[in-house]
């Protein structure tokens, strides 16, 4: 395996926004993707205030690139309005981190986590009965 890009190492060594928000908070959306048996599990959370991402947090069990990509995603999400947050794509993350083809799946997984977190938040806005975090309920491409 070749050496990692400075951007990967930077986010891996100094991850942004590591931690957790209360998943029961009505303003918080939680997205969890991956499968621990496959060696990757990403939990990404956003707090939406006035239609913008006011806070983002993550926890990740996975390879260093998965950690770096999730960290980068939280950094990019902060301050975005919902439309822009939904439009954040895996290719942007992969390009910013100069990921080799074998690691593109990591950024794909992170995009899925963002989508799930936003969907969870939207569901909460739709009504209290629809609450609860969205978990990995469909087969995700493993991070490799």
């Amino acid at each position: 395996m070749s050496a990692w890009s400075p951007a990967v190492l930077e986010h891996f060594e100094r991850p942004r926004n590591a931690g957790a928000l209360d998943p029961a908070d009505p303003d918080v959306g939680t997205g969890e993707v991956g499968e621990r048996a496959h060696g990757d599990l990403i939990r990404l959370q956003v707090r939406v205030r006035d239609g913008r991402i006011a806070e983002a947090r993550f926890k990740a069990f996975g390879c260093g690139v998965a950690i770096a990509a999730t960290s980068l995603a939280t950094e990019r999400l902060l301050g975005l309005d919902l439309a822009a947050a939904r439009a954040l794509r895996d290719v942007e993350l992969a390009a910013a981190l100069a990921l080799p083809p074998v690691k593109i799946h990591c950024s794909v997984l992170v995009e899925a986590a963002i989508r799930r977190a936003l969907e969870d938040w939207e569901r909460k806005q739709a009504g209290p009965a629809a609450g609860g975090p969205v978990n990995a309920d469909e087969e995700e491409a493993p991070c490799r």
Partner: protein
Amino acid sequence: MRRPVYLDHHATTPMDPRVLEAMLPYFTEKFGNAASRSHAYGWAAERAVERAREQVAALLGAAPQELVFTSGATEADNLALKGALELYTQRGDHVVTVATEHKAVLDTCAWLERSGRARVTYLRPRPDGLLDLDAVAAAIEPRTVLVAVMAANNEVGVLQPLAELGALCHERGVLFFTDAAQALGKVPLDVEAQRIDLLACTAHKLYGPKGAGALFVRRRDPRVRLAPQQHGGGHERGMRSGTLDVPAIVGFGAACALAQEEMAAEAARVGALRDRLWEGLRSRLDGLVLNGHPERRLPGNLNVSFVGVEGEALMMGMRDLAVSSGSACTSATLEPSYVLRALGVHEELAHTSIRFGLGRFTTTEEVDFAVETTVRAVERLRALSPLWPPAGAPSPGPAGAVAAGEPGP
């Protein structure tokens, strides 16, 4: 201290400077072809090869004529399996081996199956990695030609009971083949006492050069015969044609001679360093699982799962250490280490495993540095992990309670 600290001695070992010194003349003034019978250049090369043959044989308790030099253990594995199955078609077409063997054995067995040359039974070891002798006995059929069980595992370092396996195979009239690539020079081997019929080994795992290996082929009781797999010139008594790599073979011999002299002391020293590493880790970290048998393992081997931390991320977090992981994150398949899976280690835990391999030149300072580096990286990554602390276990308990045990002295 040179960084990254090299703790991957199962992959390969640095060459001992004394080995290099022995080899050097055979690149330059003693460049002859060992097969040249007509002049002094050839004679000198042949003498050197025969001396090396004696040195390798001595470490195995074998006769020099029982050794066939190859390019390495993979070639020796191929020659043993394909050569025996081709020659003993009258006797049978069945092989017994283990799911934790090296790919050089497993892939060769798969080829034998695919090409219709053999049927293969793959035994699963016990959770500690040791093979159940009764399972081997039960797997031997009337048409079994050979039992292939590695001496020491390359991932978890587990040492199989060679003498018991050899006695069993001898009693049942089947050949006993062992891949001793990891074991040679680290633990005592004796083809007579252990009743080994075929043994594959390689120089670069015991501080010799890459590119030289050997297959031991028993000459008496029983006389083992093989169909050669490489033709052209009849070198190595027809078993392996091709001009001998004289400098590498000289290095192989020198490495074996050094191992014979220093193995006992080195095993004690490296084993103590390995224990220091394990003690250092488990005194400071919870949620460690030792993979493989706590005592019956190579002195330099430590294979640990770090609950909640993916192995590749951990390696990225400790780039000052050269180690390897059972994680599959970069491998072509999704499966983590097949060896750990065969031991029944849960997939998730297999993804969190790190193999530390200590060796001849590992120092106490390096081990202490490895402990510090590993502890720091694990703590940092666990703080990021959604799987730490483990659900339903707010205090995961001391490592000793989770670990299968601890390495012996």
